[in-house]
Each structure stands twice: as structure tokens, then as C-alpha cells.
């Protein structure tokens, strides 16, 4: 199946709603059947979803790989850690989420000016460079950020002045993630996205029909960054700790890898990918602790080599299509024979 063709057709309406409903129902009910530790794993997966959607947007609309999601996760996390931990101001989510968002959006817009200046390799490398610069700044500014120790003792969050239990926070994360998924669905179906797809198809032509290429690309980058900012704010509460490793470029790479596992040609890709990646990580580090980098790295390389960017959802789709056509064939043949 030709990837370019699928890329260009925006996702169908309705299909994603079904997916999201199914996911929501699953996530609402699951805490009653599993242990607290398993719940934190699912919570982590839910929180990763917006950040991976950021990578997905840049991949499917700009055809660029963004290794720098960790920049914005780190920024969101540190904003939370400062405001709700070290320099305690508030632990109110209704204030912290917008605060984190505003800061990540400002940073994403300014950094986007430089990063979207060029494409391909340079785009990816600038993403990596920015995370490493932030890492070194945070690592070395001991007095402010706590250096390699990071910041722990972040207060438990409260929502509209009601303090949240762990389970309550889990549901908050679920609501935020579902909202982000619906929002992303709107954005990916908008005329904004159609024009970005056009830019990825042919930049000169896009410019000649009056599309402000650089500004739109920068805005897409900003949207991706804002997604990661949301993830960052909530992750700081989930871990109750923020350290310089949030700015690690390998950590940013994990989001790209999640997107690749899930596949970047279908809207369900990031969701499937995140659950896939986090489960893979969990089981591999439980069973072969020393080998997990090697196994994950090889898995991703093999996925890219064999199915490219189709991922799990792509394979599922083509299998489904094949079964469908087979069933049709058998139906026809029985009809003929009968």
C-alpha cells in the first residue's frame, strides 16, 4: 500500500470517536480490576499520549522527525515543580496546567523559529541540540534546579480546591488525555492541516498559492510543543519528582519510537504505540534488565526496516483489508457455485 496516498487523506470522521470512546471506557473501568502499580503504568501511558500526538502531528503534517519533545515535557515539569514544590505557590491544577501551557507555548514558538528553518536531518538535530542545551543548563544551575538531584516533594495536586487522591488524579489525567485526543482530531481534520499536508507535498507550489509556509510550520511545531507541555505538567505530579533526565534526548526519542511502533498513518497509531512501548519497556526491563536498550533499539530498527512508518496499526489495517477482500471473494465464489 502506498504510504503517501494514505497520508494525504485526512482521517475519516466518526472512526476516531469510536476509538476514543472504547479507550475511555477501558480506562474508566480498569482501575477497579488491577493493582495500584499497574494503574500507575496505565496512567503513565495515558499521559504520554498527548506528547506522542505532538510527534505524530509533525510527522504526518510536516514529514519531520521531532526528537525534542523532551524539551517541552521538561519545561512543563519544571514549571510545576517550581510552583507546586520548591517555591510553593499553589497546587491547583486549574492554575498549573494553563501556566505550564503558556510557558511551553512561548518557548515552542520562539524555538520553532530556529528549528523549522530547515528540514530533515537539520530539523531533527536542532531538536536534539535544544534538549541537550536545556539538560546542561538544568544540570549545572544547581542552586535553582537542584542539579542532578532534581526537585522532589511536589505537593499533591488539587482540582478546584478539592485535594485529589491517587485515583482521583488518575481520572483527571484520563479526562485531560481524552480532551487532548479530541482536540488533536479536530486539528488534524482542519483546513490548517490540509494546507500543511500540501506544504509537505510541494513547498514551492504551496508558497506560490499564497500559503505562509514558515509561519504555519512554526505553528504546527508550537502545537506539538503545547501537547508535550500538558504531558509534562501532569507527569511531574505523577512521579512526584523532576530531574534533569526529563531533558534527556533519548527520552525525547522514546516518543518518536512510540509513534513508530503504533504507526503514523492512522490516527489510532499514537495511542496503540504508547501502550505498546510502555508495556514493552516494562516487560523487557523486568525480564532482561541489562538488555533492554539493545532489545528496544533493535525492535525499532527492525520495524522501520520492515514496515516503515506503518507500524502496528498499519499492519492491522492491511490484514483487515486482506481478510475483508478474501471474505468477499469466497462469498462471490459460493454465489457463483450455488
Amino acid at each position, binding site marked *: 500500500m502506498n504510504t503517501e496516498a494514505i497520508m494525504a487523506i485526512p482521517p475519516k470522521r466518526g472512526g476516531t470517536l469510536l476509538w476514543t470512546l472504547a479507550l475511555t471506557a477501558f480506562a474508566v473501568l480498569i482501575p477497579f480490576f488491577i493493582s495500584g502499580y499497574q494503574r500507575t503504568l496505565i496512567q503513565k501511558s495515558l499521559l504520554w499520549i498527548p506528547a506522542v500526538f505532538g510527534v505524530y502531528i509533525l510527522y504526518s503534517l510536516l514529514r519531520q522527525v521531532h526528537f525534542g519533545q523532551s524539551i517541552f515535557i521538561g519545561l512543563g515539569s519544571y514549571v510545576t515543580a517550581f510552583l507546586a514544590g520548591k517555591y510553593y505557590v499553589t497546587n491547583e491544577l486549574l492554575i498549573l496546567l494553563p501556566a505550564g501551557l503558556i510557558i511551553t507555548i512561548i518557548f515552542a514558538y520562539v524555538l520553532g523559529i530556529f528549528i523549522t528553518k530547515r528540514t530533515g536531518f537539520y530539523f531533527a538535530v536542532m531538536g536534539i541540540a535544544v534538549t541537550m542545551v536545556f539538560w546542561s543548563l538544568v544540570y549545572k544551575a544547581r542552586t535553582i534546579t537542584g542539579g542532578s538531584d532534581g526537585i522532589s516533594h511536589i505537593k499533591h495536586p488539587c482540582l478546584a480546591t478539592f485535594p485529589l487522591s491517587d485515583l482521583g488524579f488518575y481520572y483527571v489525567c484520563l479526562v485531560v488525555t481524552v480532551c487532548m485526543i479530541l482536540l488533536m482530531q479536530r486539528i488534524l481534520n482542519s483546513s*490548517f*492541516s*490540509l494546507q500543511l499536508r500540501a506544504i509537505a507535498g*510541494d513547498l514551492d507550489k504551496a508558497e*506560490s*498559492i499564497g500559503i505562509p509556509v514558515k509561519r504555519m510550520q512554526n505553528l504546527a511545531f508550537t502545537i506539538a510543543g503545547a501537547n508535550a507541555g500538558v504531558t509534562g505538567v501532569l507527569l511531574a505530579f505523577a512521579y512526584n519528582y523532576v530531574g534533569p533526565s526529563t531533558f534527556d534526548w533519548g527520552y525525547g526519542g522514546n516518543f518518536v519510537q512510540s509513534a513508530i511502533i503504533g504507526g503514523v498513518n492512522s490516527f489510532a497509531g499514537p495511542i496503540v504505540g504508547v501502550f505498546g512501548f510502555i508495556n514493552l519497556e516494562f516487560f523487557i526491563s523486568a525480564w532482561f534488565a541489562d538488555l533492554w536498550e539493545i532489545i528496544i533499539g533493535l525492535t525499532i530498527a527492525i520495524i522501520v526496516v520492515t514496515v516503515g512508518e506503518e507500524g502496528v496499526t498499519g499492519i492491522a489495517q492491511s490484514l483487515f483489508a486482506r481478510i475483508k477482500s478474501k471474505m468477499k471473494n469466497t462469498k462471490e465464489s459460493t454465489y457463483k457455485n450455488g
Partner: protein
Amino acid sequence: MADNERMPLLLSVNKLRKYYGEVKSVNDISLEISQGQVLTLVGANGAGKTTLLNLLTGLVLPDQGEIRLLGDKITGVPPDQRAKRGIVKTFQLEHVFEGMTVFDNVRTACLSSAGKHYAFFKHVDDEREIIDKTNQLLDMFDLAKVGRTLVKNLGHGYKKVIDIAMCFAMKPKILLVDEPTSGVGEEEKCRIMELLMNQIQANNLAAIIVEHDLNLVKELGKETIVMCEGEFIARGTPDYVFNQEKVIEILVGKGF
């Protein structure tokens, strides 16, 4: 000519110059076009025709000289802004969005010309006016029957027409057409030209058409400019121009 002079002056180019190293691609060219005026531009390969068009659209910036659109200086204005103001160009090699359907190609142009760049939350299919306008354009250019086909599955001729349709979606004031018929069979050539000329006349546009096929130029019968080494060497009706000695010298061996 007298007719054109009453029309408002659209574009004026003053001593435009672009050198690539030693090559004088466009050498101090001046040009004026008014509304409804159609010029055909001919010349051998490397005479600077495409560079001139690129200078006008802003894809290439000039070394010297200025370009004015309706009296406003637009020399440094970026290409997307110029397209919005009405200078629109089709490409020599078809530049279309290969991976998208014909409908989406034209729709993108319509969205852009309506200025809907930052509509993040509205579904594309909910933009009724845009869809109506797109359908109208597809009808105008005889594309309605291939609307749902991916562009890359279509032939050269179709791609040229799609390219032109996208330019018309921009509501151009002046249309720059770079070899609309290159790489297209004889029969399609005439069809494309006819479609193009009909629409140009119907909308009373100014146009510069670069064309290699001299028979076609003759058939069109519009005012013709011959370009050589970055300069205009002859200008007038095709019959007049093609009988000039130096023009024959340059274009000899080009089937004329």
C-alpha cells in the same frame, strides 16, 4: 494597442537584473502590462524566460531594479504575499500536490486564497463556501469527473490543468504561465491552450505565457516578445516578429 491603454496599468517592471555568475540571465529588462493584456514570450533555452517569471513571483530575488504592482513597490515582498496580491504563476514542470486528490489540490488553493490558514478547529468538510468554490472551479476546468482521483495517478495533461485551476483559485490579476504545454501530446496541447485562453478572457486577466511551440504562438496571435541572453530583442505581432532576421537566426532549427 489603443484598447489596452485605456485599461489600468497593472504591473510595471523597471530595469530588472539578475546575473548568475557570468551568465546574464535577466539583463536590465523593463516591461509594462495592463489589465486584459496577454503577452507571449518566446526564446531559446536559457534565454532567461523562467528566471524573469521567477523574479516576478518572488521565488528569485533580483540583483537590481524594481517591480511595481498597481503602483506599489513589491520588489522585496515574499512569494506567498505576492500570490495574495494577484501575481500567480504556473510551473513549467507540473508542481502539484501529488499525494492528494484533485479536489483537495484545488481546495487547498481556495482555502489559501480565502485566507483560512489558521482555522484550527473547524473540520475542512464544514467549510461550505470553499467546497462550493472548489466544485465551481473543477467544473470550469472540466475536472469534476476526476475530482476524487489521486493526482499522481493522472497524466501530464491533467496535472497542467490542475496547476492552472489552482492558479485561478487565487483570484489572480496577472497570470504567469510557464510552458503550459511542455511534455504534453499535440491534441491535449490545443485543449489546454483553449481552456486557458477562454478563462483568461472570461476573467479579463493580464497574462504572460511562455511557450516553446511557435505554431501555437502564431495561432494565438497575441503580442509576442522574443528573449535572448536576458534581453528583449523583438516585440510585436507574431507575424511581424517571426519575420525579423535576427529572430529567425535565434529560433532557427526550432521547427520554424
